[in-house]
């Protein structure tokens, strides 16, 4: 029986593509953030899949990476949402195309 790793990877790649597309095409900053979360979780899925079907499943390395990553993602979401709220208060919009004052 062939290893189910490829299936996990395909799912993760699909998830990443969906996240990327969301991050690239949505105009709302909150939806872009959601896209980014999707891409992060795709990466987490990869980490877990490679760990589970890798040469050393007994070492909890993949699990550790995933937990770290989720923690970072939580922090990132908090900071990102905070930024969005503060920008909304300042510019009264959440459209990313209107926030173009960050150029040098």
């Amino acid at each position: 029986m062939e290893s189910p790793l490829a299936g996990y990877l395909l799912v993760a790649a699909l998830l990443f593509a969906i996240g990327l597309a969301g991050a690239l095409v949505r105009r709302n900053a909150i939806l872009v953030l959601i896209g980014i979360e999707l891409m992060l979780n795709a990466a987490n899925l990869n980490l877990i899949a490679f760990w589970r079907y890798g040469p050393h499943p007994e070492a909890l390395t993949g699990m550790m990476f995933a937990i770290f990553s989720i923690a970072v993602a939580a922090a990132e979401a908090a900071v990102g949402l905070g930024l969005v709220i503060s920008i909304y208060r300042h510019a009264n919009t959440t459209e990313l195309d209107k926030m173009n004052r960050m150029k040098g």
Partner: protein
Amino acid sequence: MILEATASTAQLAPSSIAGILWVIPALPIVVSGVIALLKQPQRKPATGLAIGALSISLLLSLVAFARVVAGWAHGIAVREVVNFTWARVGPTGLELGWVLDPLAAIMLVMVSFVGLLIFIYSVGYMEHDENFTRFFCFLSLFAGAMLGVVISNSLLLLFMCWEIVGLTSYLLIGFWYQKPSAAAAAKKAFITTRFGDVFFLLGIVWFFAQTGTLLFYNHGLGSLEPLSLAVVATNHAGLGLSAAGAIGLLIFAGAAGKSGQLPLHVWLPDAMEGPTPVSALIHAATMVAAGVYLIARVYPLMQVGAGPGGSTTALTVVAWVGAATAVFAALIAVAQNDIKRILAYSTISQLGYMMAGLGLGGVAVGMFHLITHAFFKALLFLGAGSVIHGCHEEQDIRRMGGLRVDMPLTFATYGIGMLALCGFPIAFSGFWSKDAILESAQHWSVAKTPFYLLVFGAVLTAFYMTRQICYVFLGYWRGHGEAHESPTVMTLPLAVLAFFAMALGVIGTPAWPWFHAFLENRAPGLDMHAFIEPSFLALLSTSTLIVAIGIGLGWWLYGNKSPKPEAPDALEKTAPHVWAALRDRLYVDEFYGVTIIAFYAWWARVADWFDRRVWGGIVAVVTWLFNFWARFNRTLDMNWVDGSFDKSCEELSNSGGLLARVQGGRVQNYLRILAVAVVVLAAVLLWSSRP
């Protein structure tokens, strides 16, 4: 004896008057500078300053003269010199100085006295001229420079003053510079005299090279003292001349230019374009006599090397040129119709007499005629000025006549001047001075021709003066308007000059040759027997005959006839060709026109052609080359250097713009680029890791 006396006095410190002798020329020069600063309408201060300064100069001159006479009375030949070094050049130096000796003293008195009278006369003559103060500025400068010439003890100082005199002569001839003829005459005078001065300067330099000093007298070391003269007399200059002779001839060339001697006389008649007082002061009495004075001053140089009773080459040339000039100018004077031109040619003729006198008889003979001539020729010129003034600026003697009634004072004084110039016996100074010249000509050892020339000249002089008098004062009035007598300020100098034109003869008679004795430092013995000596009586009768022939001929041809102004002259009818030649001044000007001036014009054209074609061509070629090179460089610069630079700048800016668009501030754009890049990177990696 004279030399010993000179040596003994030379050791003494100069007297106070000799010490301040420089004040005499300096005063008028300073005053001329002050007048130059005055405004034109300030006539009174200008005349006051000029006349005052010259009066003081005259007083000082008289004191100096008295000092020399006093020394002479004690048997001392006064020759006081004050020398100083002007500039030191290596072992030698340029030395200047002044000298007080009989020659200088007599000239000082003459120049300042005649000058003063002419200044006073000018006040009346120039009354209506708008440039009155300028006139007095120039006159004063002239007087100062002329006095400077007289007292110079250095050839260099003499030359400087000589040139200032030439400059003022130029300025005063061209005083009415609005008249083209006056401007041209001024230029002609300046250039002609300068021609002589070039030779004079050469002579000075040569003399300096030979003797090592420019001073005339310097306690035995001067260039005119025996030590130096021995050197120049023994050195040879080639062509059988000693250095002394050659230098003498060069200096004479300068004197000939200034004194209007034969080849260089052409400027003097034209100089009559100036105001009449100028003609009287500069071109009759003083400046033109400077040449004669110069020869008298360097007489020891001219004379050195002569045997007893003999003559040197230089003196022979002086005598011949003088005699030829005397006759030549007198001939031309016969056929002139301008009252001042007649006097101008008469002046040239009389200057010829002075030169001849110097060459034939020595310093005293020439100088005596210089002094007497200064008085009676100034008188004649001022008389002519008075006539011109009275006849409303008319100068043509054919349009005058009968003025003896209208201008009695002028007529009387002019008559005296005319008789003095003719050499009318006994009562007039001209007789004694001219007689002295004729007498020395008669006894000249070299040739007798000058004597005959001078006698012929004397006949002509009497003739043309009689002609002039007949035209101007006799007959009836042929001019326009009414003639009137001149104001007292003009007639008074005439009267004073007339007195001296007669009285001056007293100091130079054979019986009491005071003047000659004074110049030669002899005792002036009074010897009445000289009057009845056969040689003197023969000369007296010859002179009387000469004057009688001249005046008689003139009277016979012109006396009281009053011809119409348009009628031909009495002589013209008999010999029209000769008359025309004389009237046209024997074509000397024309001769110079077709020789020297034509040559210069030709030479100027050649130079001009060369300048335009050859040098101009070279310049044009070089210009074209540089122009071409510059154009080439410009093309290169504009198309290559500038082009490439501009293009690269443009591209830089374009690419900058392009890149700037990438950094648009839109976060999603960045992300998109990032995504594309990752995809491309992944593709490349996959592609390259292909087995």
